[in-house]
């Protein structure tokens, strides 16, 4: 059996693979079946609408051109496109989207991630991420203004000194004041991250941690 073609193909090839799929994949699927998958339209919340309207006021020409009025439907569309941009540009290779219960992460970023946060269309496939060259983004929404994000996407070093993040000029029509369809979408997406939590911050109230050498 252990050296026969049938044994290798059926037990080794199919059998053990199926065992792993059932025990490691179907078990969590069954455990979380009480949490139905939310569609993008259901993910548009008051915090996202606040940011979306803010985008329409800060970049009126661009917003009018690409999205018209800041409606819920347009917000859902921007959110979905923003997520596609996030995937296409490989943002998720340098930014994670989960806060672990170790290494003081909840003190840096906020609540430890929970399953229900991921049960939606925009987490298919899930954007856990794989490496943190930049910080975790799952609680990024609301921490910084849309102006900051526009300047940052256009030229990261201009607002974050020494940042190794590439510039994303193609999110703009020539200048940081004129984000295009993709630029507005990725900003809406980033501002949406964490918007489902009670603790959604508004950047006016946000205090960054002091640098060590600046501390008294």
């Amino acid at each position, binding site marked *: 059996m252990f050296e026969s073609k049938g044994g*290798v193909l059926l037990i080794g090839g199919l059998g053990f693979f199926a065992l792993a799929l059932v025990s490691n994949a179907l078990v969590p699927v069954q455990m979380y079946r009480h949490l139905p998958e939310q569609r993008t339209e259901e993910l548009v919340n008051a915090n996202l609408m606040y940011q979306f309207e803010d985008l329409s006021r800060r970049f009126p020409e661009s917003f009018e051109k690409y999205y018209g009025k800041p409606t819920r439907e347009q917000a859902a569309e921007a959110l979905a496109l923003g997520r596609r941009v996030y995937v296409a540009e490989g943002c998720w290779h340098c930014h994670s989207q989960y806060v672990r219960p170790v290494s003081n992460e909840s003190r840096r970023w906020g609540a430890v991630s929970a399953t229900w946060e991921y049960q939606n269309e925009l987490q*298919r496939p899930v954007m856990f991420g794989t490496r943190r060259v930049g910080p975790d983004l799952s609680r990024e929404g609301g921490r910084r203004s849309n102006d900051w994000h526009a300047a940052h996407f256009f030229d990261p070093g201009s607002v974050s000194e020494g940042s190794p993040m590439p510039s994303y000029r*193609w999110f703009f029509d020539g200048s940081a004041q004129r984000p295009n369809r993709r630029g507005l979408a990725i900003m809406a997406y980033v501002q949406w991250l964490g918007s489902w939590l009670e603790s959604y911050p508004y950047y006016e109230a946000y205090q960054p941690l002091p640098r060590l050498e600046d501390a008294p």
Partner: protein
Amino acid sequence: MTHTAWAEATGSDRDLVDRRLVAWYFVAALVYLGVSLLGGLLMALQLVRANPLQGIELLSPGRWRMIHTNAVAYGFLANSFLGALHWAIPRLTLRPVLSRWFSWFIFAAWQVVVLATAGGILLGHAQGLEWGETPTWIDPLALAGLLLVAVNFLAPITAARGPLYVSSWYFMAAFVWTLLTYAMGNFLPEYFVPGTSGGAIAGLFIHDLVGLFVTPLGWGLMYYFVPILLKKPIWSHGLSLVGFWGLAFFYPLNGIHHFLYTPIPMFLQYGAVIATVAVELVVATVLVNFFGTVWGAGRLALANLPLRWFYTGMVLYFITCFQCALQVTLTFQAVIHFTDWVVGHAHLVMFGVFSMWIFGIMTHLFPRLLDRPWYSNRLAEWHFWASTVGIVVMFTDLGLAGMFQGYYWAALLPWEASVDGSYPFWIVRLLAGLLIIFGQLCFVVNLVATWRKREHV
């Protein structure tokens, strides 16, 4: 073995092996390796803020990072393995593959798949699955290609009479596993399973791609080439059995260890950790078997360049797996997850192990494919030493960088501290990468010179 030795001595494998096809697979593999190295170089330059090509959409480091990993997996490793299998399987079974025409069709189709993947990623169609960024519209094509590969190679293996040699077990299982892994990873988390459970499946995919596609093909080829080059049989058949079945059982259970401390149920995370440690024990048996085989012939393993590639790769494999048994524990994960430690580990396994084995196979086979000796042994030595020193420096450097990053984060220093602190390590990584690129240039120059040399032996 005796059959193969006989075939080699008499040259009667000419009807079995399509040498031009093997050579073309290797050439295609090296082209994609070059593309991948350029992608890695771009990302390394970006990290040290020295990327001269800022702000160009088609040269975005984020997209080229995906080209870097996909070109290695589907361009370099897959093409090299297919070339080596076209050599090994017909000689092992004494039967040709299903059809010569069919083989060339698969070759062309696979290049279309790889090029379309690269084009799709560059144009912004990537899929949000690590190692599976192949745009969703290519996935069915790639799957069909893998199915054709399996049919083409399973034909001679299933037709062979008598007991199967170890390599054949690995090859047979790998054809089934690669198909299943590719289908599972590319379709379930994309279309059916969202969120945390989808993450569990993505973890299985990432790990199975290494463990059930690259690893069995790599070990199968080692079980084939090492005894031939050493001219002695493998040390223990029993240990081969333990190694194969241990891998088959434990490896598929590992995937979730990529996402420890996520909301994936904790008992599944513990299970993946335990299964991973079990794999390391299995790996130890395989290594004992190979070092038992070389016992008493150590001098040959140093003097013979292909064998030196193989055994250097095995030493690094042991280091990789030992590292894996430690880093998979929750204690280590708390510090090193999301850091450059993991990047170093991935480079060690993909370049330090499997690429080394492939370079050994290519170094052994090109003279046989082209019917002439290498143009320069010195260039071949430079290839070996630049690659070996480069990967050891890179892996050590990234491992250290990872620990610094992990502790910077845990200490709640501002984020920039971890970036600034990484800078010297990223410089060293860039230099190590340049050394690796230099080694591959030596290989390519040597190959071109050999190919163009007129006098045949």
